Every structure is written in C-alpha cells, then in structure tokens.
C-alpha cells in the first residue's frame, strides 16, 4: 500500500515531540511513564507509516522539495532505523531516569526527566531528514538539528563534572566540524555552482581538469566533518570522554543514530564524486587510509580499557573502521547491502549491551568491568544477554555481527583491498580479546559478597528478549533483512 507522501513521517515525529514537551510544561504532575508511553506511541505510529508511504510522491509532485529531499528505499530504511533507535533510547532513558534525577538540579523530584525523553525525538527528526538529504544545504540543516539536540543531551546530568566536561568537549568539536562542513560546501559550490548532489551528478562530465583539485579539497573537508560524526580516525579523539561522560542512553543513541546517519550521508556525498575522473580514485585512497587507521586505533586502544563505557566508545570507533572498509569497497556489488546490514546489527547489539550496562551500573553504582564480576551467578539472564552482545560485536558466527563482518569483507576481497583485509584480520583477533574481557568478568570471576541483586523490569526484559532474538535470527537467516536492503540499492 502506498498511501501517503513521505513528508508525513517527519511531521508525525515532530508533532509527537511537541505534544510531549507541552504536556510536561502544562501539567507538571504527569507521570514520566505516561510521557514515555506517549512518545513511544507517536514514534510507533511513524514507524507504521513508513511502510505505507509512496516513495515516488515527491518526485511526481514536481515541487521544489524534490530537489533536496529524497525518499528512496535507502532513506525509508534508515528512517525506520532512526525511529527504532529512538524508541530504544526512550525505553532505556525511562529505566535510567532514577539515575538521571540525581544528576540534575530540580525543585521537585522528577523535574526535567520529560525533556530528557523529548529531545531524542527531535534528534530523530533530524536523523530522518539527514538520511533523505540530497542537497548540501539540507544536509547541513538536518545535521545541525541532530548535533544541537545532542549539545543539550550530552551534558544533561549537569551536577556531574564528567558530564559537563563531555558537554563542553562535544560542543567545541561539534562546532569545529560544522565549520569544516560549511567550508567544504563553499569550495564545492565554488567549482560546481550548485549545492545539489543530483545536479553535481549531471554536471560531472563537463568538469575541466582544473576543477579537480579544488573539488577534491572541498570533498575532503566535507569528509573531515563526516569523520567527526562517524568517529573515523583522526577525528575520533572526542569519543571516549564524551561517551563516558554523557548519560548512558545518550551514549547509546549517539553511537548508533549519529553513526548510521553519518554513513548514509557519506554514501550520498561520495556517490557523485566517485565517478569523476581524477577525483574518485583519490577519494578511495583517502578512505582506505582512514579505514585502516580507524580499525587499528579503535581496536588497539580498546584492548586496555577497564571501563565498559569507554570500551564501548573505542568499540564504536572500531566498528566505524569496519564500516569504512565497506565504504572503501563501494565498487563491490554487496557493499551497499553490507553497510546497511552492518549498521542494523550494530544497532541491535549496541543497544543490548547498553541495556545491560544501565541495569548493572544502576545496581552497583559504577561502569567498570569488575562491576560485572560474577554476573553469571547473580543474574544469568543479564549475563547471557551481555555475552550475546559481546560475542556478536566480536563477530561470532550465528550472530548478526558475524554476517555483518562477512559481508563487509566479502566486498573488500571482491574489490581487492588487501591492506584492509590484513588489518581486518589483526583487529578481529583484538576484538575477541577485549569483548571477552567482559565475558570473563561475568563468568570467571566470583561476585563480591555485598553485590546487590539486580531487578529487571518487565518492559526492559521484553525489549531485551526481542533484541536477542533478532541478533540470533538474523545471524542464521540474514536474507529477510538483505531483501529489504537490496531494494534500497
């Protein structure tokens, strides 16, 4: 069924955001569970609507919207992706809210929690526009909407120094990366006289040889900016501190949502330029170097971490590396599917890990790996969930993480990217070491005697079981998701 114009999706999401925000403002007594439920309902509505939209509606209407907004399969898929990530973030935030209250000044208990549940919805709208953007101006505006939402979310627990520190770092570096983006766009505009990616595609055969160098420079600057968003080396240095300082649900959202949208933009931006003679091969070279460095840095630095949040931060860098391997092998037939599949798997396993992390750190008051000691005895369910998340992140067969890596390296071998394959071999082995450190803590070590019992609320347990089932099912039968993704190619 193709009933609606795709624009309606963002309208639903933004409306939900405003409704929730106003509900909090006008009736302060509303329970935060009600607020979360309303938000989830609105997002679920938008999610259902994504299956009912007519992707061609905008192109047919011929309005000016079509020049900067695309609703192709790729966009629709990643809109669904963003909505799911936001819903998971809200569920996680609800679970986290008791910790959150301790970190914010407030006249009454529970004040400010509603905003914390609302801002991700606006970030979600930003992500949804971002994956549809086919014009640099649109990319810039939607990216800023996402980034500004995160400026608010990262230092949200402002009574904690670490959170404030993270906020300042994120603000300064985010602003810097925006600067790179705008500067890059100006150079590209200077050469091509347009900001539309579609127009650049049409115009590329008319470009003279002189235009190549400035164009490369402009695209390079844009790549720097995207590099900040997806945590590619050497623009990953903000990641560990910000991830550690931010409230945990924000960390999860940042590492999944921001990364996914960043990769979609990366693919969209690269597409017209890769076909330009004298520019494309150089860009691939640049990507190979970045991917290698990201792989090595993320994985090697993760080896020494003792804090699960920092571990996840470096793991986020490492996974950006694997995704970049896919981007650098973009000529291969499976590359597009591989990136989509990998990101989906990454969403499932990262959120699962963060769910366990929130529950464990809420009970034990810390995020170090040794807080997980003896979890296998204390809470077999959580321990198994965490083990599944970790082995999937490491790339164990029969989990979604393995198929992700498999597809990425299939693309790399097909394209003959041997350097990346060799680094891949080294870093996959590293991955087993640091992810299994958590498994070791849970099963080898015994729990301290005063370790508190961990409660798992029903709705959290339900969400986690769904995530676990998806991780295993997609790890054995990936075709259902691949079919969805092959339509997006």
């Amino acid at each position: 069924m193709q009933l609606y114009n795709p624009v309606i999706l963002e309208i639903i999401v933004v409306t939900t955001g405003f409704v929730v925000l106003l509900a909090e403002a006008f009736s302060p007594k509303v329970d935060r569970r009600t607020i979360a439920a309303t938000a989830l309902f609105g997002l679920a509505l938008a999610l259902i609507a994504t299956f009912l939209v007519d992707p061609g509606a905008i192109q047919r209407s011929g309005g000016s919207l079509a020049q900067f907004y695309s609703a192709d399969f790729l966009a629709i898929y990643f809109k669904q992706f963003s909505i799911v990530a936001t819903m998971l973030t809200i569920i996680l935030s609800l679970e986290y809210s008791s910790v959150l209250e301790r970190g914010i000044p407030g006249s009454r208990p529970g004040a400010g929690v509603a905003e914390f549940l609302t801002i991700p919805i606006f970030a979600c709208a930003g992500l949804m526009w971002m994956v549809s953007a086919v014009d640099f101006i649109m990319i810039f505006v939607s990216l800023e909407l996402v980034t500004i939402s995160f400026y608010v979310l990262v230092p949200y627990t402002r009574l904690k120094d670490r959170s404030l520190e993270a906020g300042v770092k994120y603000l300064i570096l985010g602003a810097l990366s925006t600067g790179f983006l705008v500067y890059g766009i100006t150079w590209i505009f200077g050469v091509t006289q347009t900001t539309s990616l579609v127009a650049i595609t049409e115009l590329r055969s008319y470009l003279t040889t002189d235009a190549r160098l400035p164009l490369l420079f402009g695209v390079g600057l844009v790549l720097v900016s995207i590099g900040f968003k997806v945590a590619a080396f050497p623009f990953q240095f903000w990641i560990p501190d910000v991830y550690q300082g931010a409230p945990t649900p924000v960390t999860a959202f940042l590492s999944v949502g921001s990364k996914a949208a960043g990769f979609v933009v990366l693919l969209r931006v690269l597409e017209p330029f890769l076909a330009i003679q004298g520019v494309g091969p150089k860009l691939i070279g640049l990507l190979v170097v970045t991917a290698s460095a990201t792989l090595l840095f993320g994985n090697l630095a993760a080896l020494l971490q003792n804090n699960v949040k920092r571990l996840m931060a470096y793991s986020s860098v490492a996974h950006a590396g694997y995704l970049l391997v896919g981007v650098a092998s973009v000529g291969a037939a499976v590359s597009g599917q591989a990136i989509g599949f990998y990101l989906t798997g990454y969403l499932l396993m990262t959120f699962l890990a963060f769910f366990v992390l929130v529950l464990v750190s809420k009970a034990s008051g810390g995020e170090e790996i040794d807080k997980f000691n003896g979890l296998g005895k204390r809470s077999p369910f959580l321990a198994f969930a965490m083990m599944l998340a970790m082995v999937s992140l490491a790339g164990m067969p029969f989990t979604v993480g393995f198929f992700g890596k498999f597809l990425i390296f299939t693309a790399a071998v097909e394209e003959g990217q041997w350097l990346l394959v060799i680094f891949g071999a080294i870093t996959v082995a590293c991955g087993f070491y640091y992810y299994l450190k958590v498994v070791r803590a849970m099963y080898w070590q015994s729990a301290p005697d005063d370790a508190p019992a961990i409660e798992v609320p029903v709705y959290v347990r339900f969400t986690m079981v769904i995530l676990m089932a998806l991780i295993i099912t997609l790890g054995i039968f990936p075709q259902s998701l691949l079919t969805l993704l092959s339509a997006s190619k």
Partner: protein
Amino acid sequence: MSLSPLLFIILIPIIGALFSATGVMPRRWATIASGLNLILVLVLWAVYPAGQGEWAFTSKLPVMPALDINFSLGADRLSLIMLLLSTIVTFAAVLVSPARMEKGEGMFYACILFISAGAIGAFASTDVFFFYMFHELALIPTFLLIGIWGSGDRQAAAWRITVYLALGSFILLIGLLGLYFITPEPVRTFDMRKLQEMGGIIPPVGWVYATLLVGFGILISLFPFHSWAPQAYASAPAPAAMMHAGVLKKFGLYGMLRLTVPIFGDSVEWVTHLLLILLVGNILYIGLVTIAQRKLDWMLGYSSVMHMGYIFLGIAGLNVLSLSGASILMLAHGLSIAALFALAGEIRSRTGTLEFSHLGGLAKQFPGMAFLFGLAAMASIGLPGFANFAGEVLVFFGAFAAGSSAEATRLAGFNFYQIVTVCSLWGVVISAVYMLRSYRNVFFGDALGKAPTGSDLSFVTRSAVTLLILALLLVGFFPGLVTGGLVQSLIP
C-alpha cells in the same frame, strides 16, 4: 525440502545444553543427549549405502541466494567417520566429567555439549559457509571451560587459544572468500559438493591456497602455528581437552581433505613444498620438544601437535593410500588422545600434580588405570592392532609412493616426498621414547611425592575409556569397517 536426520544430531546436543544450563540434573541431561546422539550416528552408519560412496541424508535450505549460501546438510563416509568420532568422544567426555563439581555444573555440561554441536554441525554441513560457522560456535564454550574450570595458568591459556583461533578462523574466512572470487563467475558457490568437483575449473592461485593452508594450519596446530595447543590442553579440564584435541582439531584436517586436496591438489608446487617442510617440523621438532616435557599434560598436548604431522603427510601425499591413511589416523588419533587426556585428568584428581618428578608407582595402587593407560599409550605410539597403526602404515606407504616420477629435486635417488617420509618415520621412534618413558615414570618405579588418595577408576570412567580403546582395537583389526566408500569421498 526434506528433513535430514543430521539436523537432529546437531540439535540434540544444543537442546541437551539448554536443559543442562538450567542446572537441574545437568549430568543426566548431558548423558542422555550424548548417548542418544551416539546411537543415532551408529544407526546412520548402519543404514548408509557404503558401496557407491555417495552423499546421503541430504537437505538444503537457502540462506543467502545471492552468494549461493545454503544451510545444507549431508554425509558421506568421511563425514560419518568424523561424526562417529565426535559422538564417541562427547559421550566419553561427559562420562569422565567429575561427578561432583563445586561451581556451575550446569554451565560445564552446556559448554561440552555446545562444543559437540559445533563439531557435529561442521562435519555434517555440505556448505562451506556453515561448515565454518559451526566450527566457531565452539570457541566461546572452550574459552569458558578453560577459564572457569581449568588448572595452572588457565587465564593465559584461555586467552591464547581464543585469540589465536579467532585469528586463524578469520584468515581461513579470507581464504574461503578468495576461493569464492577466483572461481569463474557463473559457477561461484559455497557448496562443498560442487566445489569438490571443480579441481580443473578453479585456477590454481597460490595465495588462496596458502591463505587456506595457514588458516586451517592454525586451527590444526601446524608448526609453527602450534603454540596455543599444548598450553590450552594442559590447562583445560580433561573433558574439554578431550573434545578439543580429539574432535575439534580435526575440523581443519577435514577441511583440507574436502577443499584444498580436491581443488588444488599439487598444482601449486611451492605451497605443497611448504606444507611438506612444515610437517617435518611438526614431527621432528615438536617430537623432540615432547621428549623434553616434565609434565604429563604438557607432554600429551605436544604429542597431539606432533601427531598432526602424520596426518598432514597423508594429506600431502595426495593418493588413495595416503589420504585413506590420513582419514583413519584422524579417527584413531582423536580416540587415543581423548583416552589419554581422560586418564591424565583422573591422575591429577588423585595426586594433585602431573609432574613426572612427583609421580611414580601408581600401578600398584591403581592397576586398572595403569592397564588402560598402557593400552592408550600403545595405541598412540602406533602398535599393530590399534587403528593408529593402520592409519600410519597407509600414510607412510602412500606418501613414499607420491610424486615419484616427475619430481626434479632428488637426493641420493629419493624425491622430495620420499625424503620427507623417511624423516617422518623417525617420529615413530620419538613417540615410542616419550610415551614409554612417561608410562614408566608415572606408573612404575618408586612412589614419589605425597601418596595419592582415592581408589581405582570408577565403573563409569572405566567404561568410558574402555569404549574409546575398544573402538581403536576394532578399527585396528578391521580397518575395512570404516573404509567402505571412503575412496569416493576422498577422490571424487
């Protein structure tokens, strides 16, 4: 799609593991699951039409049509041999597991059964991709078994084996992808049965062969990629060592018999020569290292690495004799090393140590154990009457006859294969030296150190080890039992 009985023998251990993991009577569930599996495999063995050597019990479920990946199962004689090995050793490993455990009994049996499911799945898959996936299923249970229930420097051992094997698996994966992409476009497949018949179609590309050799080699503990093995086996609890050394390590050898032998053969000379040189390292160098060991568990670990050399020689020989020998030797080595590790575990639980300098005269107190250990040691040396002898003889004859005519490099009238075979023959002497020495050391002479506690082997343990040794004797006296249809599996 028809339902293959092989699906059940993969699922039974997994279901058994889930039941065990609940912690309610885990030992009973594990015994039932592994016993049932053994019976099922024996039934399959009996109904398999041996004469034609064709694939039986096949089923196919598409998983990723774009790359021709299917969840396809099937078995021929070679798979059945490996399945028999897996189920016998699993059953024995469950039986010899300590009856009372301090921590996490449910988890322990769940891990053993998961390793079993991984191995069985790998041997029953006729799709390269699932063959690979099933093998890695065993990685985490091994990590947990060594880490939680191991002895000695268990942490270091567990890390080492896990990271090393993860690396080896990834290299193997790259090799398999390479194999996929060097295949001419229209016939690209992950189907093992199709790949086996593409000897002339797939171009002999050296780097793919070499990558596969290194990938499989790491998993098999090919010299010089062996260093994870002795340490892990020494630290692992006896059932885990039995499963890994006895069954799981055969995965790589099985993979070579299925893929590199039929596809590449001897078409890439430098890789074949590399393999021949490295396997001499396995036999002679590791053999000497084995002699130098001061602890029984380390000695057994090294001896299992060393014996891989004979099987490699059989694989390198590339003729009917040597390949059949390699297959029989895989079975024989798996059974004999499992028996030895089981007994070493029993010794450790009675004396608290496995150092030769602290052991001695155990035969007086534990005559039953001494008798069984003696038999297992003789089998491992390759005494006639045991399956190991049948395997080794075939390997040596086959390898000596290999590559004889056209070979250019000759030394005193011997070609390269023959020189390697002659060197390898010395391995028999070496293994006799270390096995007999350790046997004398542990079971005869004066009692050293503190007196061992406990009584002779329990009935259950005794039966488990006897089962392994009976299988060895049976195949040793009647090798024809396992070779029906084997030739067709090896040379399609």
